[in-house]
């Protein structure tokens, strides 16, 4: 039984209530390292992005330390996200129901789940977040090296650095917006945060939001039994 988007460690535990394992311990640690890195990057980056936010450098021990540490956190994020990418990419491949789901975004936002197609482990919104994060992190790391002048200033000319810093700031703004969507969705859809803290969601949550994934898990279990 190889359901298309059941990930290693996913399993369903019948009972009252039904519980479903959604993220392994490794995936959760990987996620939170990435999350903390992203938040620290956003704070240190915003401090250097807008003068009104320069006070945020105090969190990192001053402007110089902020300038020094930001790119290193970026390297941590890159490798950490790299780990998440290889865990999650397969289940985030685009499938036909994702288009339908996205076309009915107003029903998503209006909580009319009955009008949405059944979706697998990730819905189209989560997949969009995943791929946007992937692309933006690649853009940020590449442009980031272009302006990491302490070590790499000799490898790019001033024209390239100007373009790099502009793209870096635009990509950073975009990724922060994507991050806001990601965090808001996790808060709004109650029962979601447990997936990344305890690793587990309730059967009702899986039924409501990822029914196709739940069905696959159930049939997978039955097929194995």
């Amino acid at each position: 039984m190889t359901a298309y988007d059941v990930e290693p460690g996913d399993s369903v535990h019948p009972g009252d209530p039904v519980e479903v394992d959604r993220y392994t311990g490794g995936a959760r640690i990987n996620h939170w390292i990435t999350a903390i890195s992203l938040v620290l990057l956003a704070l240190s980056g915003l401090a250097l992005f807008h003068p009104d936010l320069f006070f945020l450098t105090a969190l990192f021990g001053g402007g110089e330390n902020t300038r020094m540490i930001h790119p290193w956190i970026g390297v941590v994020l890159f490798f950490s996200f790299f780990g998440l990418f290889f865990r999650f990419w397969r289940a985030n491949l685009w499938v036909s129901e994702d288009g339908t789901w996205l076309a009915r975004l107003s029903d998503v936002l209006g909580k009319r789940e009955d009008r949405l197609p059944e979706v697998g482990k990730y819905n189209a919104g989560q997949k969009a977040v995943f791929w946007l994060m992937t692309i933006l992190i690649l853009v940020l790391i590449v442009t980031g090296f272009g302006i990491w002048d302490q070590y790499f200033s000799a490898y790019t000319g001033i024209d390239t650095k100007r373009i790099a810093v502009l793209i870096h700031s635009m990509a950073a703004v975009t990724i922060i917006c994507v991050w806001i969507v990601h965090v808001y969705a996790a808060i709004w859809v109650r029962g979601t945060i447990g997936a990344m803290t305890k690793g587990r969601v309730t059967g009702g949550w899986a039924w409501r939001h990822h029914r196709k994934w739940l069905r696959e898990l159930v049939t997978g279990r039955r097929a194995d039994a």
Partner: protein
Amino acid sequence: MANFEFVLPPAPTKDVKPAYGQEDLVRRSASTVSPPARQLTPVAKLIDVSKCIGCKACEVACLEWNDLHQEIGINRGVYDNPPDMTPNIFTVMRFTEWVNPETKNLEWLIRKDGCMHCEDPGCLKACPAPGAIVQYSNGIVDFDHDKCIGCGYCVKGCPFNIPRISVNDASPKAYKCTLCSDRVAVGQGPACAKACPTHAIVFGTKEEMKQHAEGRIKDLKSRGFANAGLYDPPGVGGTHVMYVLHHADQPEIYANLPKDPQISPIVSLWKGATKYVGLAAMGLFAAIGVVHHLVEGPNRVSSEDEENAKRLTGSTRT
């Protein structure tokens, strides 16, 4: 053999701050300033390229006054030596052998390169650290190393490729010519101007320097340099370091002196619209989230959902 470091008293610039105060600032990086309480007379350094003999006395005077110590480099067999500015070298002579296509004469063009002290400084515009770059009402653009964070944004902002970051220092900072702001503050001219044996470098009020340049240009024109002129590029609002060029119509022959320098539109976009649109976009996304939550309320799992899950997993049969 005496060690001169110990025999000679320390250079007087050590720990000496320019005698300018808040009341003299017209611009301050990453912050706003109230209009200056007093208006200093705009000053300028005029470099007459036609009078420069390339002796490098100005380079030496600069090192001397600013107590700079550059590691001994390598002579590459050309006059450009040192080859470029560094965090310890604020000014260099750039030598160009140029064949005038009209006269077929070889002309040796020697331009003293260094900070131009733009009226609209790109470095200051790009700087993210409040107060690390300041502009006094006399036009001098100065770096405050206590506030500099060494990010290199000024390098990207500068249309003349002037600031250098001391990346090998434990605490990297940006360095460039100060127009000897400390000397000017006490009524003296820059060290380079003082040292110049041919008076190719002169210093005074910007008005005086423009007048002086006029006389020089007239003289050059009378001697066959029809395109002699003053380099005071309007794209950066004029500069407080100006050149008299014998071929002012083609500044780029002087070791790529830009013809129409201005703050790069990429830098303006980065430091302008991106900054405001970016913050607005983030705020908007957060606001939409809050409003949506207030209007729709949380998306909760119903007991019906849990029952359905039990039915699907066969939990109800036991």
